[in-house]
């Protein structure tokens, strides 16, 4: 601990968001610095690199108007922390964690570092509690469970935000007695998107915290906002035993911000210019989801990603898919057919689905039913390609049946407009469609009669 604040005026260089200071006597990696200049300019920054007395600082806010001669840099001897309290609920903050809703800052009962600490794998509790989203394509075939991180892979122009809004409105944990809250993290959103989401949030019954970084807000804040949000989430989930749903949109903007900052630091670019450490950086966010022993709460995360050029092998969806426990993929083709939500169930996957379904969790026939739907739909889709070559008439009766099944599956099971379906309705719908086509295997017929 230093006994007094260190103040310096020894600015050597400013370049964009980077500030170089000379002749500094004490500094820590990650230490918060406060920079002030003429005309009440005040910017926060963080120490990135120390080479003897020369310090490299990353600035967070707007740097326009800073003047090397009139600048004062204060080294605070603390690392970036987030104030925490139950009073956070219902509040809105910007990417520097300042209130956006016009209300004064709350009194913090605790401060914790924004970067967080890795969860010890042995302290984790296996995610296995079903979350009902009201969306058949998700609940039925790609089930979400508490503590999971399940991203939505969207493409530009697809109704990802409408899907998210619907999930927000309907998401509930079955028979949950615990408090539930949504943390909404907006990264580089346009005002149009922002107001859409805010409307949706205000229409839900649950409490929420919003951390907002708009498209024209400082890029560096885009990297900090999800970290603030997750620190808040950890506090609410693991200290106050709440179930937390963290919704982050849009992670593509986050990754672009990461690339921009990395480039400014003159780091070596990796694939498509994104830094080589993007996997670890994304993991440091996504891996904060989960449940831990001796705590009733949970953090479930739904990040939204807009795949550039609709390409699932682009580094952003690719690295995300390697870290998250599955993905919900939206399809342009289904959207053009008027299917809402346009979830393509074939490339979609929930890795934790098997843990969250079955008797006592959803329904005994869920697993078999999902497999049967998936299998026949996959066949039907495969046959669609064939249909394009040989025409419908050139196909066998059985194949034509599967084609019709695939069409009905898309139009009646996946497509549900704004109607929320309970898990039972979803499963019954699936049974009904299978039955229409005589695709219901015997074991499912029996189980149905038991129920």
């Amino acid at each position, binding site marked *: 601990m230093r006994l007094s604040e260190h103040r310096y005026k020894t600015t050597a260089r400013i370049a964009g968001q980077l500030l170089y200071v000379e002749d500094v*006597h*004490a*500094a*820590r*990696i*990650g*230490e918060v610095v406060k920079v002030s200049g003429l005309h009440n300019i005040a910017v926060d920054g963080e120490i*990135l*690199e*120390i*080479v*003897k*007395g020369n310090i490299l600082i990353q600035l967070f806010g707007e740097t326009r108007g800073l003047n090397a001669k009139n600048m004062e840099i204060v080294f605070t001897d603390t*690392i970036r922390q987030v104030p925490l309290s139950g009073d956070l609920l219902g509040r809105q903050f910007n990417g520097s964690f300042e209130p956006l809703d016009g209300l004064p800052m709350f009194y913090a009962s605790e401060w914790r*570092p924004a970067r*967080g*600490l*890795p*969860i*010890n*794998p*042995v*302290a*984790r509790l*296996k*995610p296995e509690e079903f979350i009902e989203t009201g969306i058949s394509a998700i609940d039925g075939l790609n089930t979400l469970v508490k*503590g*999971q991180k399940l991203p939505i892979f969207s493409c530009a122009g697809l109704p990802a935000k409408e899907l998210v809004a619907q999930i927000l409105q309907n998401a509930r944990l079955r028979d949950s007695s615990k408090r539930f809250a949504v943390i909404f993290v907006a990264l580089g959103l346009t005002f149009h998107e922002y107001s859409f989401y805010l409307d949706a949030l205000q229409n839900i019954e649950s409490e929420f915290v919003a951390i907002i970084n708009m498209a024209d807000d400082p890029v560096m804040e885009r990297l900090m906002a999800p970290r603030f949000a997750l620190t808040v989430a950890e506090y609410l989930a*693991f200290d106050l035993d709440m179930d937390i749903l963290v919704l982050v949109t849009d992670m593509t903007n986050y990754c672009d911000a990461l690339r921009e900052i990395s480039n400014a630091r003159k780091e*070596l670019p*990796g694939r498509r210019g994104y830094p*080589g*450490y993007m*996997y*670890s950086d994304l*993991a440091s966010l*996504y*891996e904060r989801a989960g449940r831990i*022993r001796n705590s009733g709460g949970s953090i479930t995360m739904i990040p939204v990603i807009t795949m550039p050029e609709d390409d699932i*092998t*682009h580094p952003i969806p*690719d*690295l995300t*898919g*390697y*870290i998250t*426990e*599955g*993905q919900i993929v939206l399809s342009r083709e289904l959207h053009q057919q008027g299917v809402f939500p346009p979830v393509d169930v074939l*490339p979609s996957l929930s890795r934790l689905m*098997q843990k969250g379904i079955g008797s006592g969790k959803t329904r005994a026939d869920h697993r078999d039913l999902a497999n049967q739907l*998936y*299998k026949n739909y*996959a066949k039907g889709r*495969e046959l669609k390609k*064939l249909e394009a*070559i*040989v025409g419908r008439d050139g*196909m*066998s009766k059985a194949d034509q049946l599967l084609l019709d099944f695939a069409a009905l599956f898309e139009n009646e099971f996946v497509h549900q407009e704004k109607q929320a379906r309970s898990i039972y309705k979803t499963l019954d719908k699936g049974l009904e469609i299978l039955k229409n086509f005589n695709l219901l295997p015997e074991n499912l017929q029996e189980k149905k009669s038991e129920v």
Partner: protein
Amino acid sequence: MKTTETTGKIISISGATVRTDLTGLTLFERVSVGRHNLTGEVVSLEKDGTVLQVYEDPSGLGLDEPVQGHGVSLATTLGPGLLSVMFDGLQRPLHALADKTGPFIHPVHLPSALDLNKQWPFTPLVNKGDTVAAGVKIGYIDEGPFQHAIIVPTDKKGRVEYVAQGTVTLKEPLCRLEDGVRIFGYHSWPMRVPRPYRKKISPQGPVITGQRIIDFLFPLARGGTSIIPGGFGTGKTILEQTIAKHADVDIVIYAGCGERGNEMSELIEEFLQLVDPRTSCPLMDRTVLVVNTSNMPVAAREASIYTAVTLGEYYRDLGFHVLLLADSISRWAEALREISSSLEEMPGEEGYPTYLASRLSSFVERAGVVETLSGDIGSLSMILSVSPPGGDFTEPVTQALLRTSGAFLMLDTELANSRHFPAINWMQSYSLYLDILADYFKQNISKDWEVLRSLCRQIMHKEESLKEIMEIVGIEGLQEQDRLAMTVAEEIRSSFLSQNAYTADAFCDPQKTLDIIRSITDKFLQGQDITNGKNEHEAL
């Protein structure tokens, strides 16, 4: 051990790379960095200072904080008590860590990877007055179902003056030699140095994985290496975990390198519940987990692979058959890349350091069958998963591993999308161990093993070549012979090559594997006879 004279100060920090004014350290020496004594390693020596790599989150590390050398390399502690423990990349026991710091990992130091106070039953094998040298077993400790031999280390020899008996702890020496040298039940070994053995033997006998497609078409030999590259969602982790559960080896070392935390918690839970049919003990009793999830410090991820392989070699040296599963090597390579770029080294292909291939090959070379210093036969086999970006196998890590490994199990995104698991592509995968293992299967399972395999491959090849035609003309448009091949191939795919990891079918022994393929191919042969007969009839 050197003393406090080797203390210096931090003069610069960039990410996890720290420079100190301390000199006189040795390359790859272990160091303590900063007021919280973060673990680090010396990566390069300069005229007036030393460059260190810190293995923990460096935030908060400050200028002028102390740096201290330990005089020894980063080492792995080896001895009884490793089994069923979960370690992080630096071999800190995660359960003990959780007891100390709660559910989140704080950088703290724990004294030892092993519980030195635990009591063990020890049976001596030497007597007072015997002369012992490196490799001699002075006795063994019963560790679960295993006899864990205590072996005289390479640098010690002499006449036994005292040997312990009965209940012991690792704190006291188990044996004392006449010149005062003491032999403990545990020792440490620098993780980046391969452990010694008498001689290396070619791979022999299979590692039975219980996966039909692997054992039958692309088998792994004991002492060999298989790689499993696959894009996300192709089931790498499930495949690795299924093999970890069922493989017919003595000891399994599972390295979760840069992967998901939730998966690891599931793995522990399952391994505690499942019973190893060969020992009737929980599977966990034959397993050591080395876990560095993707959000744990990157540099420790780089070290985790070496911790795992050193543990594997240790059990090999005790005369066991060991299987090392690493998931995934790509995350290790990425850690290497991050470290390399923070050291400002010149990048090679895709930003990976140019020494990527040589590091990988020297790592893979640590697998093998050996005659141990005690004269036993032990083996270390490896199954390494690879996560190529975008599922593109032309990337450097897959390519470098292809050159050094013996079997290539290519996971196919299309197979995974059609829910065919394990999604191993049967056209492009290969195993170089087929010839070595031919005799084994012929003698131990059936003389038809090879014949059936080539028949199976023929059918699958035929399907591949007919597939496109069939898409256009439909199955009715094919000749009868070809139609038969297509239906049989379909059956091979659905009831032989695919296996559900969540049912009893998760493990299939070689005999059963043979029976299944025989029953399917019999249909093919019979069908062929019939159609041939018909053709002849028609010709008449």
